[in-house]
């Protein structure tokens, strides 16, 4: 195996990553390795540091210390083309219709896959005709997810993709994520509160609590020892 392949086998590598905002430490020395092709859940209570960590992995924020590598390259402007990021509380321009937004997205993302976008419009039942500001939370969430998945970026980061989303939308989103990741070419890191609903999706889970991260742990190994992700979550956060 040559060096290039070895680097590619690791999608995300965080070493001693710390983050402070003003004087408050948000993340403490996070060490985290995510192998390429995995579907990984990032689990923890509100304020644990999940969003901050995802934002840094996306390359949009720099840690105060430590190092983050995406497929072997330092996270930052240079890795933006390899990462599709769905931020928490992200807003799409409300004055555009779904169709207008998708046209815009296709023009700004060089890796936009029109065929996949068309397929996802069907699978996610995206509302193309209504202005985004008049769409329901679930409709906008599905449009946002489409915007991530229609790109060919090998690393997908989803921050609470189900927040405020109705059951049917959650199911559609989960099915599309699974179908999209099934060939094992892409890597997904997803922060979510919906542990019970989402745990069958994950290969591995990372727990994060008050800025301390542990994992990834294999979900099947947990189950072999008679524990669910949820019971493990309660152990970790008890």
């Amino acid at each position: 195996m040559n060096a290039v392949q070895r680097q590619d086998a690791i999608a995300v590598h965080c070493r001693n990553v710390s983050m402070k905002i003003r004087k408050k430490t948000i993340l403490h020395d996070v060490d985290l390795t995510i192998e390429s092709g995995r579907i990984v859940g990032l689990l923890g209570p509100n304020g644990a540091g999940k969003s901050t960590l995802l934002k840094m992995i996306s390359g949009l924020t720099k840690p105060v210390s430590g190092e983050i590598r995406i497929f072997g390259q330092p996270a930052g402007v240079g890795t933006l083309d390899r990462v599709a990021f769905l931020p928490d509380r992200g807003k799409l321009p409300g004055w555009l219709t779904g169709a207008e937004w998708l046209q815009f997205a296709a023009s700004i993302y060089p890796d936009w896959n029109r065929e996949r976008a068309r397929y996802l419009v069907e699978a996610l039942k995206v509302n193309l005709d209504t202005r985004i500001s008049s769409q329901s939370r679930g409709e906008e969430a599905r449009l946002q997810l489409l915007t991530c998945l229609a790109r060919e970026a090998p690393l997908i980061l989803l921050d609470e993709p189900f927040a405020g989303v109705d059951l049917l939308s959650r199911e559609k989103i989960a099915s599309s994520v699974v179908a999209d990741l099934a060939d094992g070419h892409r890597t997904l890191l997803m922060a979510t509160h919906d542990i019970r609903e989402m745990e069958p999706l994950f290969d591995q889970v990372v727990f994060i609590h008050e800025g301390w991260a542990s994992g990834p742990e294999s979900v099947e190994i947990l189950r072999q020892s008679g524990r669910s992700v949820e019971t493990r979550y309660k152990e970790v956060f008890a």
Partner: protein
Amino acid sequence: MTEESLWYPNVRIDPSRPLYEQFCEQMRADIARGALQLGARLPSVRDLAAWLRVNPNTVMRTYQELERGKLLVTHRGQGTFVTDDARIVEESKRDIARQAVAELRARAASIGLTTEQLWLLGQGEG
């Protein structure tokens, strides 16, 4: 081409047991009772994983496990099918029954019933 199967499993997931084991059990049972017929074509790993909303590796492992037991066969480029050999299905039924009997025996033993007493119960004479 074989007709497309409309079969999708109906599983209530127990999150504290390996999922592939639960899917294997369900598929063995569906094949045994004929809900999945000899030679039936199964959904692709991708479709079944999306339908169940589970990790694709779980479905792949389920198929692999059942292929090892010869209940499923994969034809390259065509997909995965239930075996068309009725003897294999018959043997799998017996395995399911044997396992149920073993569990029943263990349960009876745990409450102090002998195999003879259990047998008599089964005859309606206990």
